[in-house]
């Protein structure tokens, strides 16, 4: 029966660590079955292995790895990572968002329209003198709070 463990990584290096782990697991023939890097989880990758020792053996000497969390993760805790929701599904009209990408990066805005099919939201920037509706990709916004 496989078990799940969290491997702590340097921030924003999760993908690189996952690829390195794959390489090391194949090279050292450790009992690692899969490596999961969910978008929502920053600074960690989840490793599915036969035992804690197998994970420790695989990460040994790997750069960008800060350690292995000893506590085993249950399957229930992982399930929601396997079916990630679209960001647009989490945003509703009237929500306050922060723009995290593009020319309006760092600006706060209020959502006026949500287009789930196109994965787009129409927003009004809070600091703009004249409120002009702007349509941006939902992935470029981060929900701040519900109005």
């Amino acid at each position, binding site marked *: 029966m496989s078990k799940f463990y969290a491997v702590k990584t340097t921030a924003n290096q999760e993908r690189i660590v996952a*690829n390195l782990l794959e390489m090391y697991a194949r090279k050292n023939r450790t009992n690692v079955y899969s490596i999961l890097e969910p978008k929502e989880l920053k600074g960690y990758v989840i490793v599915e292995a036969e035992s804690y020792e197998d994970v420790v053996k695989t990460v040994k000497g790997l750069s960008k790895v800060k350690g292995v969390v000893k506590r085993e993760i249950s399957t229930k805790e992982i399930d929601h990572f*396997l079916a990630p929701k679209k960001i647009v599904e989490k945003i509703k009209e009237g929500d306050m968002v922060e723009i995290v990408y593009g020319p309006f990066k760092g600006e706060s805005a209020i959502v006026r329209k949500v287009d789930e099919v196109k994965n787009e939201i129409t927003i009004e920037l809070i600091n703009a003198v004249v409120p002009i509706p702007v349509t941006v990709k939902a992935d470029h916004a981060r929900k701040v709070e519900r109005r």
Partner: protein
Amino acid sequence: MTELACKKCKYINADTSICKNCGSSEFTKEWFGYVIILDPEKSEIAKKLGIKVPGKFALRVD
């Protein structure tokens, strides 16, 4: 090197026009989540996602 996910099987391909897993030619660069399957027979995640071959897969493709 651009990593593109196959729209049909979510397999992540690099610099190719045909998916190495299913042969499809429909790709997207809008993919999220990343899972590497090393042993599909023993992996619980592979079973849950219905993956039968080892490799790199996206969790969601748009």
